[in-house]
């Protein structure tokens, strides 16, 4: 029986504000998984803390809700333990690019086969409207009443500069494109970043749906855009001030797991835990 959308739904109503961008991301994710014909039990979502981090609460699959900012190492452990699973990390811009920044940068270079979906609303939603690392300069929030004075984090540039093999950006207002991006990210072997612009209708009245609809471009529409040229991708992102959607860059190659010595195709969780007595003797012999 083919997997249907209903299979990924839960009885839990989504707790987001009406109009929140995260609805679009959730439905794109569900649809992408159906398109890929993944079974709910074959998928594990690792969600952060934030409005965005609740995404796992609303989708029927294996879910783990981490501490704030730790989705990527949790997803790494999960994938290494069971490489047969489709592992998706999902969280907010604060979760991923503030407290989670260190893990983000290291995940980019480690290249474990997970898909990272960041629901970027340029603000802290769940804690009621403070500045976020992706907030624009001058942005007024509860914690920056005179306007933000820090340079915003540019996740796409960072991913490109760090050798990430799949860098994409979507927009929760454009669900069909986002579905395709998620599918491509999941299918990519290695770490895939999908920065999903997901407006917060309550605390961010600057970066609204309209704001993005007016400004976002699709890379397909850039003449001669070549998503395999990293330097060009970087240049395009800088030129367009990050306001591009689509697969910005993609490079095939072995994932972290592929390069680990002795790592098996059979997931660790399916291997026999018992040590053969002769193996134990060999280990002991090293100390004699």
């Amino acid at each position, binding site marked *: 029986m083919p997997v249907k959308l209903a299979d990924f739904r*839960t*009885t*839990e109503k989504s707790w987001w504000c009406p109009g929140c961008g995260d609805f679009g991301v959730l439905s794109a994710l569900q649809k992408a998984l159906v398109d890929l014909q993944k*079974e*709910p*039990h*074959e998928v*594990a979502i*690792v969600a952060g803390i934030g409005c965005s981090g*609740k995404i*796992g*609460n609303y989708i*029927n*699959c*294996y*879910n*783990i*809700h*981490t*501490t704030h900012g*730790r989705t*990527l*190492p*949790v*997803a*790494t*452990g*999960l*994938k*290494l*333990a*069971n490489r*047969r*699973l489709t592992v998706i990390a999902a969280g907010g811009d604060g979760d991923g690019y503030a407290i989670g920044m*260190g*893990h983000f*940068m*290291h995940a980019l270079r480690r290249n474990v086969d997970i898909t990272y979906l960041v629901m970027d609303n340029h603000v802290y939603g769940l804690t009621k409207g403070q500045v976020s690392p992706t907030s624009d300069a001058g942005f007024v929030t509860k914690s920056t009443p005179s306007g933000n004075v820090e340079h915003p984090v540019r996740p796409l540039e960072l991913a490109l500069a760090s050798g990430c093999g799949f860098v994409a950006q979507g927009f929760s207002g454009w669900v069909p494109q986002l579905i395709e991006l998620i599918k491509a990210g999941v299918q990519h072997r290695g770490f895939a970043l999908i920065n999903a612009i997901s407006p917060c209708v309550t605390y961010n009245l600057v970066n609204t749906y309209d704001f993005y609809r007016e400004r976002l471009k699709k890379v397909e529409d850039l003449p001669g855009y070549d998503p395999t040229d990293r330097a060009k991708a970087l240049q395009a992102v800088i030129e367009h001030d990050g306001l591009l959607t689509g697969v910005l860059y993609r490079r095939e190659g072995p994932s972290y797991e592929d390069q*680990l*010595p*002795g*790592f*098996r195709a*059979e*997931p*660790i*969780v399916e*291997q026999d*835990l*018992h*040590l053969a*007595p002769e*193996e*134990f003797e060999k*280990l*002991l012999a090293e*100390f*004699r």
Partner: protein
Amino acid sequence: MLSEFAWKVGGQQGEGIESSGDILAAVLARRGYHVHGYRVFSSRIKGGHTNYRVRVSTRPVRTPNEDVHILVAFDQESIDLNATEVVPGGVVIADSHFKPKLPEGIQATLLDIPLTQIAQENGSQLMRNVVAIGATAYALGLPHELFHDLIHERWGRKGREVVEQNLAALRAGYDFAKEHLGEVHFSVAPGDGVARPIMSGNDATGLGAIAAGCRIMAAYPITPASDVMEYLVKRLPRFGGVVLQCEDEIASVTTLVGAGFAGARAMTCTAGPGFSLMQEAIGLASAAEVPIVVVDVQRAGPSTGMPTKVEQSDLFAMIGGTHGDAPRIVVAPATLEDCFYVTAEAFNLAERFQCPVIVASDLMLGLSRQTVEEPLDLAKVTIDRGELASEEELAAVPAGQFARYKVTASGVSPRSLPGQPNGQYLATGVEHAPTGKVTENPENRVAQMDKRWRKLEGVRGGGLRYLGDPEPDILFVSFGSTFGAIEETLAMIAADGQKAGFACLTRLWPLPKEELAPLLTRAPRVLVVEQNATGQLRRLIQQELGFHDKLHSALRYDGLPFLPRQLYVRAGEVVA
């Protein structure tokens, strides 16, 4: 005829002088001696005094003592710092190149021997350690042939010539000593001929983890814990496992949370600073009921403290360092063999009780190289994965309704593993209903909190080991590496005709109250021995059981291990 002796080598850090200690220890371990090797070093790569004490005995020894029979010195500083420990009649083997002098009042024989020069003459100055071993052999009255096998094994890969050079260097050291010491040498009682493996507690921890089915290790380097990672990174790939050096300790421990959720046995190994960073995630594992194993090889704190010195001061951090009421289990190996068995069992506890298990090791235990006194028996390592939901059970559940956090009498709820059809649920550190759904319902909250804590009531037995007199005048209580010193103190007290007992705690949380309370009730005086400044174990016992008036502390927190004699004196004060 010595039934026991100690040998010490001293020199500058980074000059590889430890290798002579390793050779001596390894050879004697093979010949049926019991060996304990203890290295003093500092947080520096090259330079600065370091020394390595090898205690050798015809009965098991688990701790360093104070006397040195033979001191090998590669510089004058090593003599100046260590000569007072040399017993009357002892031998100081010192390299002529620094013109060694014995301080006044030391009743030892100085063997002024051109170690470096002899080594150079035989091929390379690197072999001065081997020359010193040769001289040591003579001074102990041991044949130098004892060392030949090991030299063959150790240098065999480098070719025949290197082996021959080392053999010649060994022989030259031996001959020089013979010529100059003449009759001045010890003679050592024979060993029992049983070849025992020799390893560090950290090695045993790593080995225990492999035996227990640990296949994922995620860690960040830190003294004195890094060796566990370095041991495993070479061996786990053979068993399909992986060692991941993370970007920090938060990543390490959260990697375990992912792996544990997936159903793998996973561990990290750290020391104080890293442990403190893990506090938040330990709470997550506790609340989301994910099995993880965290080894804390304690060192002297607070903060960076003294990274190369022993301490046992993370007890409260291990038991209650994360915010909120977060149940966990803390076990504590006291011996090398414990490092193996207790670590292995930690994985069972983690999966049976679905919570974080912390293994409280310490630097003395982790780094001392010792002979294995009770054979490490793989058959004694069982694998108990705790309650796992079967495919059939899951198939019977209405879709999406698996009650991962079902409120049960034991507090333990069967878990599904990702990949199992129909076992989907939400694992979360947010308070949740039995299905994992987030809720703030007050009754549910109480039910879930109680359920999580109820699990600990099932953690019973095996937390306390009793030694000594059943009706003691004084009861020692301790955990961790002080075991060896207390064991010897008991013998000293018994030799005085007095009665001493020893409750060694191998589990700190939940404290084995039922086993400990009657012992405390019975004993007129109790001495809680711990390597920290504030009596953390004593305070823990007071918190859980009382007995304030009876409890006395033996505290040591200068970075050095307790000596048996010191405890013997302290016990005398308490009894007086």
